[in-house]
């Protein structure tokens, strides 16, 4: 996989992972919070309901008490005239509903024994042979309370009733005010608890609900089975009992998740009705879902941005690497002149600088090699490059050639220094070419004198032959140069060449800082001395070789024997020959 792609995938993966984890965390914590909040409301719901019911009971009881205290009402009750009593009830319920609209759906007059004497209101009166209020009154008697209250069924309508005693001056009857339990009450309960409320009959049929009909029906089918109506706690008012922590349930109603709790409302439970509080988890999480969508959108944008940045970054990484690779190929091909310019201040910039330094170094090495080739003979240079500039030496048989320029002094008169050097170099160039053509190594130039070696540093069995051939070539080259000089109107040049073959010490000679490959020994001095012999007119030759050289020749060369000749620095005469 390409580096750029890997960087891209890594960055994109990181961003996606961070985003995913963030969404998960948001989801988890939001759901937890929502459930905690709903549970908190659940915890208070039962108490809220009982408080509301108690307040409503109190209110109804206050109104019923006013009716019960009405003297005419008492008299009407004492009279057996049912019609008058009914009429009285009618005007009373109207008065009550005028004072507190909707509070009374039925006004009843019940004997202390629980028989309904009269009833009036929009709700159905209790059937003739039923005594729906008897249990309420019995309870009030048993509990010794000022009033009787609770829930009763009138037909298939669920009502809450409060009954207060009619005193004349003793209890003669109970005056009861009843209100239907319907969606309006559920809505009131729901609003106070900030929850949804569903009230179900013991048989599971809905009585009242704040949910839409479809959801109510769905809930009625799924609702937890109603427990047996629990007895009221043995205290006067249920509201004083602390709300119990009841575990809630989670239900799926038509695809919506609801948390459900059965609220403990004794007034309802006694009549076999269950109050459920619900809260839609999904509705509560809706703001979070919106936030998550936003996060997702922002995340997608961020991912795109990250990819773009990653792309650029990857390119900014891979491009200099590519450049470096290309540059490496250039250097491998020997191009040390091209410089890498990445225009960067980072590690790649440093690397580029290092590359350039390397190019410079390589170029310098080549230059040094080139200079070496020029300053020492290519053979010596090659040997130096191969073996290193080791000090030390070896004995070997070499043929040493000395060539000295003649007639240079008169020629140089009237010449400027550059012209002089140019002329000298011209001469040395021709001579050197002749020497090198025969494998001779220019050991050094000593002014206008040339010292050349044959058989060192590379051993050559025919060093004497090579040296003599080189001398002849030099003679020819000088003649050619002289023709040029003559054409230029300059006086001719002459030279003298001495050649000797001897066993010498060869090696890199000098200090650590400066070395010369050279040879030392008597044989070298003799070659230089033989060169000076060419000045002697009686020998009439420009090339003199020693008898050692002649003996080393493999191929015959026309020579003129000059006989043993005393040589300066030598105790015995040296047998020399002139090369014809």
């Amino acid at each position, binding site marked *: 996989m390409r580096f750029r792609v890997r960087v891209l995938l890594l960055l994109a993966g990181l961003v996606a992972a961070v985003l995913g984890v963030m969404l998960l965390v948001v989801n988890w914590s939001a759901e937890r919070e929502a459930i905690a909040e709903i549970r908190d409301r659940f915890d208070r719901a039962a108490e809220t309901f009982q408080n509301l019911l108690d307040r409503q009971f109190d209110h109804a009881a206050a109104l019923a008490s006013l009716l019960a205290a009405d003297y005419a009402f008492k008299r009407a009750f004492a009279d057996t005239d049912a019609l008058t009593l009914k009429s009285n009830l009618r005007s009373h319920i109207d008065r009550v509903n005028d004072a507190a609209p909707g509070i009374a759906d039925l006004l009843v007059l019940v004997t202390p024994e629980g028989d309904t004497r009269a009833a009036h209101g929009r709700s159905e009166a209790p059937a003739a042979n039923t005594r729906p209020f008897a249990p309420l009154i019995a309870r009030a008697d048993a509990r010794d309370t000022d009033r009787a209250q609770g829930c009763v069924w009138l037909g298939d309508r669920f009502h809450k009733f409060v009954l207060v005693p009619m005193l*004349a001056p003793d209890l003669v009857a109970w005056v009861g005010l009843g209100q239907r339990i319907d969606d309006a009450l559920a809505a009131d309960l729901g609003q106070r608890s900030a929850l949804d409320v569903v009230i179900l009959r013991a048989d599971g049929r809905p009585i009242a609900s704040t949910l839409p009909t479809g959801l109510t029906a769905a809930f009625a089918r799924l609702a937890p089975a109603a427990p047996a109506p629990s007895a009221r706690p043995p205290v006067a008012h249920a509201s004083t009992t602390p709300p119990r922590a009841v575990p809630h349930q989670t239900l799926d109603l038509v695809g919506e998740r609801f948390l459900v709790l059965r609220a403990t409302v004794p007034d309802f439970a006694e009549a076999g009705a269950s109050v459920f509080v619900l809260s839609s988890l999904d509705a509560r999480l809706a703001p979070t879902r919106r936030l998550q969508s936003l996060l997702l959108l922002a995340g997608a944008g961020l991912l795109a941005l990250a990819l773009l940045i990653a792309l650029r970054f990857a390119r900014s990484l891979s491009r200099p690497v590519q450049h470096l690779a290309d540059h490496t190929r250039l250097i491998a091909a020997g191009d040390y002149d091209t410089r890498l310019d990445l225009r960067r201040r980072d590690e790649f910039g440093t690397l580029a600088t290092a590359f350039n330094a390397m190019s410079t170094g390589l170029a310098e090495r080549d230059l040094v090699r080139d200079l070496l080739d020029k300053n020492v003979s290519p053979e010596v240079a090659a040997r130096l490059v191969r073996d290193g500039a080791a000090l030390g030496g070896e004995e070997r048989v070499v043929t040493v050639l000395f060539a000295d320029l003649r007639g240079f002094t008169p020629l140089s008169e009237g010449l400027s220094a550059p012209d002089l050097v140019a002329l000298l170099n011209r001469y040395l160039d021709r001579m050197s070419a002749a020497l090198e053509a025969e494998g001779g190594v220019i050991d050094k130039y000593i002014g206008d004198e040339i010292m050349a070696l044959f058989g060192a540093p590379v051993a050559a069995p025919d060093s004497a032959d090579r040296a003599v051939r080189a001398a002849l070539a030099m003679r020819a080259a000088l003649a050619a140069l002289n023709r040029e000089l003559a054409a230029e109107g300059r006086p001719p040049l002459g030279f003298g060449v001495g050649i000797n073959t001897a066993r010498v010490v060869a090696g890199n000679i000098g200090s650590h800082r400066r070395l010369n490959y050279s040879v030392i020994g008597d044989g070298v001095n003799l070659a230089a001395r033989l060169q000076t012999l060419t000045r002697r007119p009686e020998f009439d030759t420009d090339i003199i070789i020693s008898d050692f050289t002649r003996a080393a020749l493999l191929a015959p060369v026309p020579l003129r024997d000059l006989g043993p000749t005393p040589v300066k620095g030598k105790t015995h005469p040296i047998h020399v020959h002139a090369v014809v």
Partner: protein
Amino acid sequence: MTPRLLLPVLAGLLALAPARLPAAEHLLTLTDAKGKPVADAVVSLFPLDRPPPPAPPPPGLIIAQRDGEFIPLVVAVRVGAAVRFPNEDRIQHHVYSLSPAKRFDLPLHGGDTIPAVVLDQPGVVSVGCNIHDWMRSYVVVLDTPWFARSETDGLVRLTAPAGRYRREIWHHRLAKPLVTELVLADETPLAETLPLTLRRDRHPVRRSLTDPGSSY
């Protein structure tokens, strides 16, 4: 015991005298469930073997309205008694009874201006005041000369000729009268202690007749 309250008892005793029958005594101690003496209970004896003696001429009975209360709270009378309701307060009262034994309605009145009410039917007449809900009085109208009301010591002493009786005990906090049959014998007083199960008194608390702090 005030002389007024003694009247019905004396009337009973008087009714006994002409019969010249040997007198038997019945002593009853009434307590509540906790053993505390119960006052204002009315115990009456109805002879089972003979008719009750004829009622004497109706005695006068007074239930006063004093300081926003009916005085006395409980009174037992023989059928035919006439009750006057003199108002001793500065404010008026509206005295009524919706009891089946005697219904009457004495609209707002002051002083002793209204005629006496004749209680011609046996039964309990609960008397109230329409404008003062806490005011009440119970008149137990009996068709027998042998009855008595318990005092604060819960003690009832009845003297009647020996014989079989239906004993009725009434108290306004009893759910219904307690009825027993008993036999009284000469020279051997029948003593009994009877705990009563009393209901809660469903009754409004007494309030000031007018503004608090002002006198009336």
